[in-house]
């Protein structure tokens, strides 16, 4: 084929313009919440075979996962520990005891978990109570909004996920998260993992991580590990489904959320 310089440049120019264009529309569609279904349809129409990987038939499917934590059922320190320990274990969370620690699920005193609810004359039992904290899997997550690479993104089931291979470690998401739910691997975490669980990836230094609602377990039809370990003190389900367990418990009990005034619509509810 005879291609002169002019033609060559033209082709290169058009291809790169198309590529950049597609990238930008991708970025725009994530702003306006349009999914990638169109692309898939276009591909299929053009005779391309689309992915044959099918989800596990047992996989739990929801529009927006949420959890209701019934603090009344957390009585002994062990009630907290069992939920936290199982997560640390199966997600290979490094045990670092410095200001550069990594945590996905942990406990804080009520006053620290809900600083804006501060009340000098609060009922004693609640005041001294510990609260289980984790990523709120916000409906409108600021961390996703600020991430410059799309390394943190919202799945169709509402889970705010991390791509550890795309994250550049700029930590903008940590500044953006109003809940302090994110941790950065300031160093290689592997030497600080007591026993590596081969079923879940360990992370590398220089990336951010956080609770992902056990996406890997949901995909196999299992409840999040903390929910399972809580023996009913945590209720998990699809908040958009009026018949889900989580909706039922929320409609029958008074619940609060962390910093609801910020408009992020957190999906971790506390029954106090």
């Amino acid at each position, binding site marked *: 084929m005879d291609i002169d310089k002019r033609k060559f440049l033209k082709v290169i120019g058009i291809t790169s313009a198309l590529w950049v264009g597609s990238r930008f529309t991708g970025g725009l569609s*994530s702003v306006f919440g349009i999914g990638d279904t169109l692309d898939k349809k276009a591909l299929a129409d053009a005779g391309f075979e689309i992915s044959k990987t099918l989800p596990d038939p047992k996989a739990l499917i929801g529009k927006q996962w949420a959890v209701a934590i019934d603090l009344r059922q957390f009585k002994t320190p062990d009630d907290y520990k069992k939920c936290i320990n199982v997560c640390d274990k199966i997600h290979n969370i490094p045990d670092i005891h410095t200001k550069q620690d990594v945590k996905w699920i942990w406990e804080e005193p009520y006053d620290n978990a809900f600083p804006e609810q501060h009340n000098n004359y609060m009922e004693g039992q609640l005041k001294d109570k510990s609260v289980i904290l984790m990523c709120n899997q916000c409906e409108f997550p600021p961390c996703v909004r600020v991430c410059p690479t799309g390394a943190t993104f919202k799945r169709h089931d509402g889970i705010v996920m991390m791509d550890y291979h795309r994250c550049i470690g700029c930590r903008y998401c940590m500044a953006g998260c109003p809940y302090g739910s994110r941790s950065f691997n300031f*160093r290689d975490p592997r030497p600080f993992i007591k026993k590596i669980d081969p079923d879940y990836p360990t992370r590398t230094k220089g990336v951010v991580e956080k609770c992902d609602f056990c996406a890997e377990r949901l995909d196999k039809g299992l409840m999040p590990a903390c929910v399972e370990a809580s023996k009913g003190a945590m209720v998990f389900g699809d908040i958009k489904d009026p018949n889900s367990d989580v909706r039922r418990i929320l409609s029958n009990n008074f619940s609060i959320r962390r910093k609801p005034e910020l408009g992020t619509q957190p999906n971790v509810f506390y029954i106090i």
Partner: protein
Amino acid sequence: MIEKAFYGSKKYWIWILFLLAFLGLCFHFYLMQLNQGLTITGMSRNVSWGLYIAQFTYLVGVAASAVMLVIPYYLHHYKAFSRMIILGEFMAIAAVTMCMLFIFVDLGQPMRVMNVILHPQLHSVMFWDMTVLSGYLVLNLLIGWTTLESERKNVAPPSWVKPLIYLSVVWAISIHTVTAFLYAGLPGRPYWLSAIMAARFLAGAFCAGPAILLLLVFLVQKFVKYRVGEESIQTLSKIVTYAMSANVFFLLLEIFTAFYSRIPEDMNAFRYLFVGLDGHTTLVPYMWVSAGLAIVSLAILIPPQLRNNTKLLTVALIALVISTWIDKGFSLIAAGFVPNPFDRVTEYLPTFPEIMIVLGVYTIGILILTILWKVAISVKEKTTA
């Protein structure tokens, strides 16, 4: 034109070699960070940005401040700046380069930096900050280099430069506005969540940037015959005076809103900075030094008879640079994370390796500035002789 950078006095070469040697030393600490991770810094889970991002913020201001010369010179044809303008434009180039390097050294996975371009996220302010910063770098390189080259050849600058110059005025404002938006748009950080942030940034930039430029000019004039002219110095110091007054005024506005409303989350960061919070007082002495120096600088800058005395002016400018640096180049970032979402205070102080990496980036900036100013002054000395 670049050949001018390769012919210099013995002093020039000793200076270049010194910078390179010091850069080598600093680079050693960057390798250490590359190897061990950001754990060698003083940053933490709660204070997840530190000195690097603060330097980035400060230097975006320095870069943007070139517009304080561009507007009078190109928009108002104020000819007294003709011997100064190229120095300002070239300083902006050095400053923007340092900004980019400070972002780079702050990354946990620097080899993945191109992901910002490969997967652009239009909803991320950081994407836009990268866009405006690289655009500003290109604009200043094009404008500065072309106008200087034309001057050397004794011809009028090509006509396409004019629109670029006008664009650069808006662009300069945009780089610092977008940088302010990085912070001012975050829901959980009350200290940063302020509509006046961008205005405060610009005011701080328009005093600190020209102040640094003037100090550097005073320094360089000790070594070269080139003079920028007394009038341009006086005018620029007037600009510095107005901008610094606005800067202090904006800070007082923030303090009023926080303390008259008595909303704890709005007061907390200021309390932490000026009196300490929950017994944490690490930054308190720095902040009072900053406040004191701000007053000293204004006290000298405002009366014309003091401002026009070069020795006093130098003192005022040094005070101003230190004062604004503590405010914007250090405490603004650390205090934004205080108290954390759990109403706790985590203190931050940079570590020695972190400071060395910062000095390394500054050394690269000074190297670029030395080379560019060498070219500019060599050309200018010939054409204006």
